[in-house]
Protein backbone atom coordinates (compact mmCIF):
# COMPACT_ATOMS: atom_id res chain seq x y z
CA UNK A 1 0.00 0.00 0.00
CA UNK A 2 2.72 2.42 1.02
CA UNK A 3 4.47 1.84 -2.27
CA UNK A 4 1.33 2.54 -4.24
CA UNK A 5 0.67 5.74 -2.36
CA UNK A 6 4.20 6.91 -3.07
CA UNK A 7 3.69 6.22 -6.74
CA UNK A 8 0.44 8.15 -6.74
CA UNK A 9 1.83 11.15 -5.00
CA UNK A 10 4.83 11.11 -7.31
CA UNK A 11 2.41 11.05 -10.22
CA UNK A 12 0.47 13.97 -8.82
CA UNK A 13 3.69 15.87 -8.26
CA UNK A 14 4.67 15.22 -11.85
CA UNK A 15 1.32 16.45 -13.04
CA UNK A 16 1.66 19.62 -11.05
CA UNK A 17 5.10 20.24 -12.49
CA UNK A 18 3.82 19.87 -16.01
CA UNK A 19 0.74 21.95 -15.44
CA UNK A 20 0.27 24.46 -18.20
CA UNK A 21 -2.26 27.19 -18.43
CA UNK A 22 -4.69 26.83 -21.28
CA UNK A 23 -4.37 29.59 -23.79
CA UNK A 24 -7.44 31.27 -25.16
CA UNK A 25 -7.87 31.72 -28.88
CA UNK A 26 -6.25 35.01 -29.86
CA UNK A 27 -8.35 37.60 -31.57
CA UNK A 28 -7.14 38.88 -34.90
CA UNK A 29 -4.46 41.52 -34.47
CA UNK A 30 -5.33 45.05 -35.47
CA UNK A 31 -3.01 47.83 -36.63
CA UNK A 32 -2.36 50.34 -33.82
CA UNK A 33 -3.37 53.33 -35.94
CA UNK A 34 -6.67 51.67 -36.91
CA UNK A 35 -7.35 50.96 -33.27
CA UNK A 36 -6.57 54.60 -32.44
CA UNK A 37 -9.03 55.83 -35.05
CA UNK A 38 -11.77 53.60 -33.74
CA UNK A 39 -11.13 54.66 -30.15
CA UNK A 40 -11.16 58.34 -31.08
CA UNK A 41 -14.39 57.94 -32.98
CA UNK A 42 -16.02 56.05 -30.12
CA UNK A 43 -14.78 58.58 -27.59
CA UNK A 44 -17.07 61.12 -29.21
CA UNK A 45 -20.12 59.03 -28.33
CA UNK A 46 -18.74 58.10 -24.93
CA UNK A 47 -18.44 61.75 -23.98
CA UNK A 48 -22.11 61.41 -23.24
CA UNK A 49 -22.74 57.64 -23.23
CA UNK A 50 -20.31 56.47 -20.52
CA UNK A 51 -20.39 56.76 -16.74
CA UNK A 52 -17.37 59.07 -16.72
CA UNK A 53 -18.65 61.27 -19.51
CA UNK A 54 -22.13 61.39 -18.05
CA UNK A 55 -20.94 62.65 -14.64
CA UNK A 56 -19.02 65.62 -16.04
CA UNK A 57 -21.45 66.29 -18.83
CA UNK A 58 -22.92 69.75 -18.80
CA UNK A 59 -24.13 70.51 -22.25
CA UNK A 60 -27.05 72.62 -23.34
CA UNK A 61 -30.16 70.66 -24.29
CA UNK A 62 -29.02 67.26 -23.17
CA UNK A 63 -31.69 65.43 -21.28
CA UNK A 64 -29.58 63.70 -18.65
CA UNK A 65 -32.54 61.83 -17.20
CA UNK A 66 -33.12 60.16 -20.52
CA UNK A 67 -29.44 59.62 -21.13
CA UNK A 68 -28.97 57.86 -17.79
CA UNK A 69 -30.66 54.73 -19.17
CA UNK A 70 -28.42 54.64 -22.22
CA UNK A 71 -24.92 54.29 -20.85
CA UNK A 72 -22.27 51.91 -22.13
CA UNK A 73 -19.50 50.62 -19.86
CA UNK A 74 -16.28 51.35 -21.76
CA UNK A 75 -14.23 48.65 -19.99
CA UNK A 76 -16.83 45.98 -20.69
CA UNK A 77 -17.29 47.24 -24.23
CA UNK A 78 -13.59 47.01 -25.05
CA UNK A 79 -13.46 43.51 -23.59
CA UNK A 80 -16.40 42.40 -25.71
CA UNK A 81 -16.12 40.94 -29.19
CA UNK A 82 -17.21 44.25 -30.66
CA UNK A 83 -14.72 46.20 -28.59
CA UNK A 84 -12.79 47.13 -31.69
CA UNK A 85 -15.81 47.99 -33.82
CA UNK A 86 -16.87 51.59 -34.23
CA UNK A 87 -20.14 52.60 -32.63
CA UNK A 88 -21.00 54.14 -35.93
CA UNK A 89 -20.52 50.86 -37.79
CA UNK A 90 -23.75 49.70 -36.18
CA UNK A 91 -25.43 52.95 -35.19
CA UNK A 92 -25.16 54.03 -38.71
CA UNK A 93 -26.54 57.42 -39.31
CA UNK A 94 -27.63 60.46 -37.47
CA UNK A 95 -25.98 59.83 -34.18
CA UNK A 96 -23.20 62.18 -35.19
CA UNK A 97 -25.44 65.09 -34.46
CA UNK A 98 -27.09 65.92 -31.29
CA UNK A 99 -29.93 65.72 -30.46
CA UNK A 100 -30.17 62.50 -32.41
CA UNK A 101 -32.74 62.38 -35.16
CA UNK A 102 -36.00 60.93 -33.94
CA UNK A 103 -36.05 57.71 -35.91
CA UNK A 104 -32.32 57.01 -35.70
CA UNK A 105 -33.01 54.16 -33.33
CA UNK A 106 -34.29 52.04 -36.14
CA UNK A 107 -31.19 52.74 -38.15
CA UNK A 108 -29.08 50.08 -36.62
CA UNK A 109 -27.08 47.71 -38.75
CA UNK A 110 -28.41 44.35 -37.74
CA UNK A 111 -26.22 41.30 -37.04
CA UNK A 112 -26.81 39.82 -40.47
CA UNK A 113 -25.21 42.80 -42.20
CA UNK A 114 -21.82 41.68 -41.01
CA UNK A 115 -22.33 38.03 -39.99
CA UNK A 116 -24.40 36.92 -42.95
CA UNK A 117 -23.68 33.19 -43.09
CA UNK A 118 -23.64 32.53 -39.37
CA UNK A 119 -26.80 34.56 -38.98
CA UNK A 120 -28.70 32.49 -41.55
CA UNK A 121 -27.68 29.21 -40.01
CA UNK A 122 -28.49 30.38 -36.51
CA UNK A 123 -31.82 31.78 -37.54
CA UNK A 124 -32.80 28.43 -39.03
CA UNK A 125 -31.86 26.72 -35.79
CA UNK A 126 -33.78 29.28 -33.82
CA UNK A 127 -36.89 28.50 -35.85
CA UNK A 128 -36.74 24.95 -34.46
CA UNK A 129 -36.26 26.19 -30.94
CA UNK A 130 -38.77 26.08 -28.04
CA UNK A 131 -38.79 29.85 -28.21
CA UNK A 132 -39.99 29.95 -31.82
CA UNK A 133 -43.64 29.78 -30.82
CA UNK A 134 -46.29 32.18 -32.05
CA UNK A 135 -46.44 35.15 -29.72
CA UNK A 136 -43.02 34.60 -28.27
CA UNK A 137 -40.94 34.39 -31.39
CA UNK A 138 -41.44 38.04 -32.24
CA UNK A 139 -40.03 39.10 -28.92
CA UNK A 140 -36.78 37.24 -29.45
CA UNK A 141 -33.94 38.87 -31.32
CA UNK A 142 -30.24 38.09 -31.29
CA UNK A 143 -29.70 40.87 -28.77
CA UNK A 144 -32.21 39.35 -26.34
CA UNK A 145 -29.31 37.13 -25.36
CA UNK A 146 -26.32 38.85 -26.92
CA UNK A 147 -25.92 42.41 -25.74
CA UNK A 148 -23.73 43.60 -28.63
CA UNK A 149 -21.79 45.86 -26.26
CA UNK A 150 -21.06 43.12 -23.77
CA UNK A 151 -21.07 39.68 -25.32
CA UNK A 152 -17.96 37.54 -25.61
CA UNK A 153 -17.97 34.29 -27.58
CA UNK A 154 -16.81 31.32 -25.55
CA UNK A 155 -13.84 30.65 -27.74
CA UNK A 156 -12.22 33.95 -26.78
CA UNK A 157 -12.74 33.52 -23.08
CA UNK A 158 -10.07 32.22 -20.76
CA UNK A 159 -12.08 30.54 -18.10
CA UNK A 160 -14.92 28.09 -18.70
CA UNK A 161 -16.41 29.32 -15.41
CA UNK A 162 -16.78 32.79 -16.93
CA UNK A 163 -18.38 31.30 -20.01
CA UNK A 164 -20.83 29.41 -17.83
CA UNK A 165 -21.68 32.52 -15.87
CA UNK A 166 -22.23 34.66 -18.96
CA UNK A 167 -24.19 32.11 -20.95
CA UNK A 168 -26.40 31.04 -18.04
CA UNK A 169 -27.19 34.66 -17.34
CA UNK A 170 -28.72 34.88 -20.83
CA UNK A 171 -31.27 32.27 -19.86
CA UNK A 172 -31.66 33.14 -16.19
CA UNK A 173 -32.22 36.83 -16.83
CA UNK A 174 -35.54 35.69 -18.21
CA UNK A 175 -36.18 32.23 -16.73
CA UNK A 176 -35.07 33.37 -13.31
CA UNK A 177 -37.19 36.48 -13.12
CA UNK A 178 -40.99 36.71 -13.23
CA UNK A 179 -40.74 40.33 -14.27
CA UNK A 180 -38.76 39.64 -17.46
CA UNK A 181 -40.64 36.46 -18.22
CA UNK A 182 -44.01 38.20 -18.07
CA UNK A 183 -42.94 40.55 -20.81
CA UNK A 184 -42.48 37.62 -23.15
CA UNK A 185 -45.18 35.17 -22.18
CA UNK A 186 -48.50 35.04 -20.41
CA UNK A 187 -47.84 31.50 -19.22
CA UNK A 188 -46.52 30.80 -15.74
CA UNK A 189 -42.75 30.71 -15.52
CA UNK A 190 -41.55 27.08 -15.24
CA UNK A 191 -40.05 26.40 -11.83
CA UNK A 192 -36.41 25.63 -12.60
CA UNK A 193 -35.66 24.02 -9.26
CA UNK A 194 -38.61 21.67 -9.59
CA UNK A 195 -37.82 20.85 -13.22
CA UNK A 196 -34.25 19.93 -12.34
CA UNK A 197 -34.95 18.06 -9.13
CA UNK A 198 -33.48 14.93 -10.70
CA UNK A 199 -30.09 16.65 -11.00
CA UNK A 200 -28.13 16.39 -7.72
CA UNK A 201 -25.83 19.17 -6.52
CA UNK A 202 -27.82 21.55 -8.72
CA UNK A 203 -26.02 24.79 -7.72
CA UNK A 204 -22.71 23.06 -8.33
CA UNK A 205 -23.80 21.87 -11.76
CA UNK A 206 -25.12 25.28 -12.75
CA UNK A 207 -21.80 26.86 -11.93
CA UNK A 208 -19.93 24.23 -13.89
CA UNK A 209 -22.05 23.61 -16.97
CA UNK A 210 -24.35 25.74 -19.10
CA UNK A 211 -28.05 25.35 -19.70
CA UNK A 212 -27.23 24.90 -23.38
CA UNK A 213 -25.07 21.85 -22.55
CA UNK A 214 -28.27 19.89 -22.00
CA UNK A 215 -30.77 21.99 -23.91
CA UNK A 216 -29.16 22.03 -27.36
CA UNK A 217 -28.07 19.30 -29.76
CA UNK A 218 -24.32 18.91 -30.21
CA UNK A 219 -23.04 20.83 -33.20
CA UNK A 220 -19.61 20.77 -34.72
CA UNK A 221 -19.32 24.36 -35.84
CA UNK A 222 -21.11 27.30 -34.26
CA UNK A 223 -23.07 26.31 -31.18
CA UNK A 224 -26.56 25.20 -32.12
CA UNK A 225 -29.26 27.72 -31.25
CA UNK A 226 -32.01 25.13 -31.27
CA UNK A 227 -33.13 25.09 -27.62
CA UNK A 228 -34.62 21.67 -26.93
CA UNK A 229 -37.83 21.11 -24.97
CA UNK A 230 -38.00 19.06 -21.78
CA UNK A 231 -38.50 15.70 -23.49
CA UNK A 232 -35.44 16.10 -25.68
CA UNK A 233 -33.09 17.66 -23.12
CA UNK A 234 -30.12 15.64 -21.91
CA UNK A 235 -30.94 13.67 -18.80
CA UNK A 236 -28.29 10.96 -18.83
CA UNK A 237 -25.58 11.61 -16.30
CA UNK A 238 -23.01 9.72 -18.33
CA UNK A 239 -23.41 12.16 -21.20
CA UNK A 240 -20.94 14.19 -19.15
CA UNK A 241 -19.75 11.79 -16.45
CA UNK A 242 -17.78 9.47 -18.71
CA UNK A 243 -14.44 9.35 -20.44
CA UNK A 244 -16.30 10.08 -23.64
CA UNK A 245 -17.94 13.14 -22.11
CA UNK A 246 -19.92 15.39 -24.46
CA UNK A 247 -18.40 18.31 -22.57
CA UNK A 248 -15.53 17.81 -24.99
CA UNK A 249 -17.82 18.84 -27.82
CA UNK A 250 -19.46 21.62 -25.87
CA UNK A 251 -18.09 23.82 -23.11
CA UNK A 252 -14.54 22.58 -23.59
CA UNK A 253 -14.72 22.42 -27.37
CA UNK A 254 -12.14 25.12 -27.90
CA UNK A 255 -9.62 23.49 -25.60
CA UNK A 256 -9.84 19.93 -26.78
CA UNK A 257 -7.49 20.43 -29.68
CA UNK A 258 -4.84 21.62 -27.26
CA UNK A 259 -4.85 18.54 -25.09
CA UNK A 260 -6.73 15.32 -24.62
CA UNK A 261 -4.82 13.77 -21.76
CA UNK A 262 -2.07 15.09 -19.56
CA UNK A 263 -0.07 12.56 -17.55
CA UNK A 264 -2.75 9.97 -17.99
CA UNK A 265 -5.77 12.03 -16.99
CA UNK A 266 -8.54 11.60 -19.51
CA UNK A 267 -10.18 14.93 -20.37
CA UNK A 268 -7.45 16.76 -18.50
CA UNK A 269 -8.57 20.10 -19.93
CA UNK A 270 -11.71 19.74 -17.81
CA UNK A 271 -9.63 18.93 -14.77
CA UNK A 272 -8.24 22.45 -14.68
CA UNK A 273 -11.73 23.59 -13.84
CA UNK A 274 -13.63 20.74 -12.35
CA UNK A 275 -13.22 17.18 -11.17
CA UNK A 276 -16.01 15.34 -12.94
CA UNK A 277 -16.54 11.84 -11.58
CA UNK A 278 -16.20 9.32 -14.37
CA UNK A 279 -14.83 11.85 -16.85
CA UNK A 280 -11.51 12.85 -15.36
CA UNK A 281 -9.99 9.64 -14.12
CA UNK A 282 -6.35 8.73 -14.49
CA UNK A 283 -5.67 5.73 -16.68
CA UNK A 284 -2.24 5.07 -15.17
CA UNK A 285 -3.67 4.97 -11.67
CA UNK A 286 -6.48 2.69 -12.85
CA UNK A 287 -3.95 0.44 -14.52
CA UNK A 288 -1.67 0.32 -11.45
CA UNK A 289 -4.54 -0.57 -9.15
CA UNK A 290 -5.85 -3.08 -11.68
CA UNK A 291 -2.51 -4.87 -11.73
CA UNK A 292 -2.35 -4.78 -7.95
CA UNK A 293 -5.80 -6.37 -7.74
CA UNK A 294 -4.84 -9.03 -10.27
CA UNK A 295 -1.77 -9.92 -8.20
CA UNK A 296 -3.84 -10.22 -5.03
CA UNK A 297 -6.36 -12.47 -6.75
CA UNK A 298 -3.55 -14.52 -8.23
CA UNK A 299 -1.95 -15.09 -4.82
CA UNK A 300 -5.28 -16.11 -3.34
CA UNK A 301 -5.98 -18.57 -6.12
CA UNK A 302 -2.46 -19.96 -5.92
CA UNK A 303 -2.71 -20.35 -2.17
CA UNK A 304 -6.05 -22.13 -2.45
CA UNK A 305 -4.61 -24.58 -4.95
CA UNK A 306 -1.62 -25.24 -2.70
CA UNK A 307 -3.96 -25.86 0.22
CA UNK A 308 -6.04 -28.29 -1.73
CA UNK A 309 -2.98 -30.14 -2.92
CA UNK A 310 -1.47 -30.13 0.58
CA UNK A 311 -4.66 -31.47 2.13
CA UNK A 312 -4.81 -34.19 -0.48
CA UNK A 313 -1.18 -35.17 0.12
CA UNK A 314 -1.76 -35.27 3.88
CA UNK A 315 -4.85 -37.38 3.60
CA UNK A 316 -2.98 -39.85 1.35
CA UNK A 317 -0.09 -40.01 3.80
CA UNK A 318 -2.27 -40.45 6.88
CA UNK A 319 -4.93 -42.47 5.30
Amino acid at each position, binding site marked *: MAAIKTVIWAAIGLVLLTTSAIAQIERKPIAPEDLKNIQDSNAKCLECHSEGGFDTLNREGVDKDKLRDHLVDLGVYEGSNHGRVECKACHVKGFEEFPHAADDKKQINWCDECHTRKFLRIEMQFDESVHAKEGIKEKFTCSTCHDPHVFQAAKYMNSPRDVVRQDNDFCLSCHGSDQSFEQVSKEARPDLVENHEWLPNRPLHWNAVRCVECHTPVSKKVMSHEILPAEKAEKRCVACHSADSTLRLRLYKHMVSEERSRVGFVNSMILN*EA*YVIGATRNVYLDLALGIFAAVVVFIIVLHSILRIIAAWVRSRRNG
Partner: protein
Amino acid sequence: MAERAYIMPIALRLWHWTNALLMILLIISGASLHFTDPVIPLIRFDIARTIHNVSGIGVSVLYIFFAVWNSATGSWRQYIPELKGLKANLDRQNYYVFVGQLKGDAPHVVPTPEQKFNAMQQLTYIGVMYIAMPVVIVTGLAFFYPELAPAQLFGFDGLLPIAVLHYVAGFGLTMFLLGHLYMGTTGTTVAGGFRMMITGWHDEHDEKPENEQP
Protein backbone atom coordinates in the same frame (compact mmCIF):
# COMPACT_ATOMS: atom_id res chain seq x y z
CA MET B 1 -9.43 -24.99 29.23
CA ALA B 2 -12.79 -24.61 27.63
CA GLU B 3 -12.88 -25.97 24.14
CA ARG B 4 -15.47 -23.46 23.03
CA ALA B 5 -15.13 -19.75 23.71
CA TYR B 6 -17.88 -17.17 23.19
CA ILE B 7 -15.83 -14.35 21.82
CA MET B 8 -18.14 -12.54 19.44
CA PRO B 9 -21.13 -10.89 21.15
CA ILE B 10 -24.30 -10.57 19.08
CA ALA B 11 -24.01 -6.79 18.76
CA LEU B 12 -20.53 -7.13 17.39
CA ARG B 13 -21.61 -9.75 14.90
CA LEU B 14 -24.54 -7.67 13.73
CA TRP B 15 -22.19 -4.73 13.35
CA HIS B 16 -19.79 -6.86 11.38
CA TRP B 17 -22.30 -8.24 8.90
CA THR B 18 -24.08 -4.93 8.35
CA ASN B 19 -20.73 -3.37 7.74
CA ALA B 20 -19.78 -6.15 5.33
CA LEU B 21 -23.00 -5.74 3.36
CA LEU B 22 -22.62 -1.97 3.14
CA MET B 23 -18.99 -2.31 2.09
CA ILE B 24 -19.95 -4.60 -0.77
CA LEU B 25 -22.62 -2.11 -1.87
CA LEU B 26 -20.08 0.71 -1.64
CA ILE B 27 -17.54 -1.17 -3.70
CA ILE B 28 -19.95 -2.09 -6.46
CA SER B 29 -21.57 1.35 -6.64
CA GLY B 30 -18.19 3.09 -6.27
CA ALA B 31 -16.85 1.11 -9.20
CA SER B 32 -19.93 2.09 -11.22
CA LEU B 33 -19.32 5.75 -10.46
CA HIS B 34 -15.69 5.57 -11.41
CA PHE B 35 -15.92 3.36 -14.51
CA THR B 36 -18.93 4.88 -16.17
CA ASP B 37 -18.11 3.57 -19.60
CA PRO B 38 -17.39 -0.02 -18.73
CA VAL B 39 -17.24 -2.99 -21.00
CA ILE B 40 -19.65 -4.71 -18.66
CA PRO B 41 -22.24 -2.11 -17.72
CA LEU B 42 -22.61 -1.96 -13.95
CA ILE B 43 -25.19 0.16 -12.15
CA ARG B 44 -26.63 3.27 -13.83
CA PHE B 45 -24.85 6.42 -12.65
CA ASP B 46 -27.65 8.14 -10.74
CA ILE B 47 -28.78 4.90 -9.10
CA ALA B 48 -25.19 4.08 -8.17
CA ARG B 49 -24.90 7.53 -6.65
CA THR B 50 -27.96 7.00 -4.46
CA ILE B 51 -26.82 3.56 -3.32
CA HIS B 52 -23.33 4.87 -2.65
CA ASN B 53 -24.53 7.88 -0.66
CA VAL B 54 -26.91 5.86 1.52
CA SER B 55 -24.46 3.08 2.28
CA GLY B 56 -21.64 5.61 2.72
CA ILE B 57 -23.59 7.32 5.47
CA GLY B 58 -24.47 3.90 6.92
CA VAL B 59 -20.84 2.85 7.10
CA SER B 60 -19.87 6.19 8.66
CA VAL B 61 -22.47 5.74 11.39
CA LEU B 62 -21.25 2.20 12.02
CA TYR B 63 -17.74 3.53 12.23
CA ILE B 64 -18.78 5.97 14.92
CA PHE B 65 -20.28 3.05 16.87
CA PHE B 66 -17.04 1.23 16.43
CA ALA B 67 -14.93 4.16 17.61
CA VAL B 68 -17.11 4.87 20.64
CA TRP B 69 -17.41 1.22 21.60
CA ASN B 70 -13.70 0.70 21.14
CA SER B 71 -12.63 3.56 23.34
CA ALA B 72 -15.34 2.91 25.96
CA THR B 73 -14.47 -0.74 26.41
CA GLY B 74 -10.76 -0.40 25.85
CA SER B 75 -11.08 -2.88 23.00
CA TRP B 76 -8.74 -0.78 20.94
CA ARG B 77 -5.96 -2.52 22.80
CA GLN B 78 -6.84 -5.63 20.83
CA TYR B 79 -5.41 -3.88 17.80
CA ILE B 80 -2.11 -2.84 19.30
CA PRO B 81 0.50 -5.45 18.53
CA GLU B 82 3.14 -6.38 21.09
CA LEU B 83 6.12 -4.46 19.80
CA LYS B 84 8.57 -6.77 21.48
CA GLY B 85 9.10 -9.71 19.18
CA LEU B 86 6.80 -8.21 16.57
CA LYS B 87 9.03 -9.26 13.72
CA ALA B 88 9.32 -12.79 15.03
CA ASN B 89 5.58 -12.88 15.48
CA LEU B 90 4.96 -11.72 11.94
CA ASP B 91 7.52 -14.13 10.55
CA ARG B 92 5.85 -16.92 12.44
CA GLN B 93 2.50 -15.84 11.04
CA ASN B 94 3.81 -15.64 7.51
CA TYR B 95 5.48 -18.98 7.95
CA TYR B 96 2.20 -20.43 9.12
CA VAL B 97 0.29 -19.03 6.15
CA PHE B 98 2.73 -20.14 3.53
CA VAL B 99 4.22 -23.32 5.03
CA GLY B 100 2.82 -24.53 8.35
CA GLN B 101 -0.78 -24.37 7.31
CA LEU B 102 -0.06 -26.29 4.15
CA LYS B 103 1.67 -28.96 6.22
CA GLY B 104 -1.41 -29.19 8.42
CA ASP B 105 -0.01 -27.54 11.57
CA ALA B 106 -2.50 -26.06 13.99
CA PRO B 107 -2.47 -22.26 14.27
CA HIS B 108 -0.40 -21.17 17.25
CA VAL B 109 -2.47 -18.15 18.17
CA VAL B 110 -5.96 -19.25 19.17
CA PRO B 111 -8.42 -16.42 19.60
CA THR B 112 -9.75 -15.78 23.11
CA PRO B 113 -12.08 -13.06 24.40
CA GLU B 114 -9.04 -11.15 25.68
CA GLN B 115 -6.93 -11.49 22.55
CA LYS B 116 -8.88 -12.11 19.40
CA PHE B 117 -6.26 -11.25 16.85
CA ASN B 118 -2.80 -12.41 15.92
CA ALA B 119 -0.03 -9.95 15.08
CA MET B 120 -0.76 -10.03 11.37
CA GLN B 121 -4.43 -9.33 11.96
CA GLN B 122 -3.55 -6.55 14.36
CA LEU B 123 -1.39 -4.74 11.83
CA THR B 124 -3.90 -5.20 9.03
CA TYR B 125 -6.82 -4.08 11.17
CA ILE B 126 -4.93 -1.00 12.32
CA GLY B 127 -4.30 -0.09 8.69
CA VAL B 128 -7.91 -0.76 7.80
CA MET B 129 -9.82 0.59 10.79
CA TYR B 130 -7.58 3.45 11.84
CA ILE B 131 -6.16 4.63 8.53
CA ALA B 132 -8.08 3.52 5.43
CA MET B 133 -11.58 3.76 6.96
CA PRO B 134 -11.14 7.29 8.35
CA VAL B 135 -9.61 8.39 5.05
CA VAL B 136 -12.47 6.93 3.02
CA ILE B 137 -15.07 8.39 5.36
CA VAL B 138 -13.57 11.87 5.59
CA THR B 139 -12.96 12.14 1.85
CA GLY B 140 -16.40 10.61 1.24
CA LEU B 141 -18.04 13.24 3.43
CA ALA B 142 -16.03 15.90 1.60
CA PHE B 143 -17.45 14.49 -1.64
CA PHE B 144 -20.92 15.36 -0.39
CA TYR B 145 -19.92 19.01 -0.49
CA PRO B 146 -17.81 19.30 -3.64
CA GLU B 147 -18.55 23.03 -3.75
CA LEU B 148 -16.51 23.46 -0.56
CA ALA B 149 -13.34 22.04 -2.09
CA PRO B 150 -10.81 24.71 -3.09
CA ALA B 151 -11.62 25.91 -6.59
CA GLN B 152 -8.06 25.40 -7.72
CA LEU B 153 -5.09 23.58 -6.35
CA PHE B 154 -1.88 23.90 -8.35
CA GLY B 155 -3.85 24.49 -11.50
CA PHE B 156 -6.22 21.57 -11.00
CA ASP B 157 -9.63 21.41 -9.46
CA GLY B 158 -9.39 21.19 -5.67
CA LEU B 159 -11.54 18.08 -5.62
CA LEU B 160 -8.86 16.05 -7.36
CA PRO B 161 -6.77 15.11 -4.29
CA ILE B 162 -9.92 14.21 -2.38
CA ALA B 163 -11.10 12.04 -5.24
CA VAL B 164 -7.74 10.31 -5.62
CA LEU B 165 -7.43 9.64 -1.89
CA HIS B 166 -10.99 8.34 -1.77
CA TYR B 167 -10.42 6.09 -4.74
CA VAL B 168 -7.11 4.70 -3.50
CA ALA B 169 -8.25 4.17 0.09
CA GLY B 170 -11.51 2.63 -1.16
CA PHE B 171 -9.46 0.35 -3.36
CA GLY B 172 -7.27 -0.58 -0.39
CA LEU B 173 -10.39 -1.54 1.54
CA THR B 174 -11.58 -3.62 -1.39
CA MET B 175 -8.32 -5.54 -1.41
CA PHE B 176 -8.62 -5.98 2.34
CA LEU B 177 -12.10 -7.40 1.93
CA LEU B 178 -10.83 -9.92 -0.60
CA GLY B 179 -7.95 -10.98 1.63
CA HIS B 180 -10.17 -10.94 4.68
CA LEU B 181 -12.75 -13.20 3.06
CA TYR B 182 -10.05 -15.59 2.02
CA MET B 183 -8.35 -15.55 5.39
CA GLY B 184 -11.75 -16.44 6.83
CA THR B 185 -11.42 -19.79 5.11
CA THR B 186 -8.01 -20.50 6.54
CA GLY B 187 -8.99 -21.57 10.01
CA THR B 188 -8.24 -25.20 9.68
CA THR B 189 -11.72 -25.90 8.48
CA VAL B 190 -12.87 -23.79 5.59
CA ALA B 191 -16.12 -22.68 7.22
CA GLY B 192 -14.95 -22.40 10.81
CA GLY B 193 -14.21 -18.71 10.80
CA PHE B 194 -17.53 -17.89 9.18
CA ARG B 195 -19.33 -20.09 11.68
CA MET B 196 -17.68 -18.15 14.48
CA MET B 197 -18.78 -14.85 13.02
CA ILE B 198 -22.33 -16.15 12.74
CA THR B 199 -22.73 -18.03 16.02
CA GLY B 200 -20.22 -16.09 18.07
CA TRP B 201 -18.53 -19.25 19.28
CA HIS B 202 -14.98 -20.04 18.48
CA ASP B 203 -14.93 -23.81 18.35
CA GLU B 204 -11.65 -25.49 19.22
CA HIS B 205 -12.73 -28.50 17.19
CA ASP B 206 -12.68 -26.30 14.17
CA GLU B 207 -9.00 -25.78 14.71
CA LYS B 208 -8.17 -29.49 14.61
CA PRO B 209 -7.35 -30.65 11.14
CA GLU B 210 -9.96 -33.18 10.07
CA ASN B 211 -7.40 -35.85 9.48
CA GLU B 212 -6.25 -35.70 13.09
CA GLN B 213 -9.68 -36.16 14.54
CA PRO B 214 -10.49 -39.57 15.90
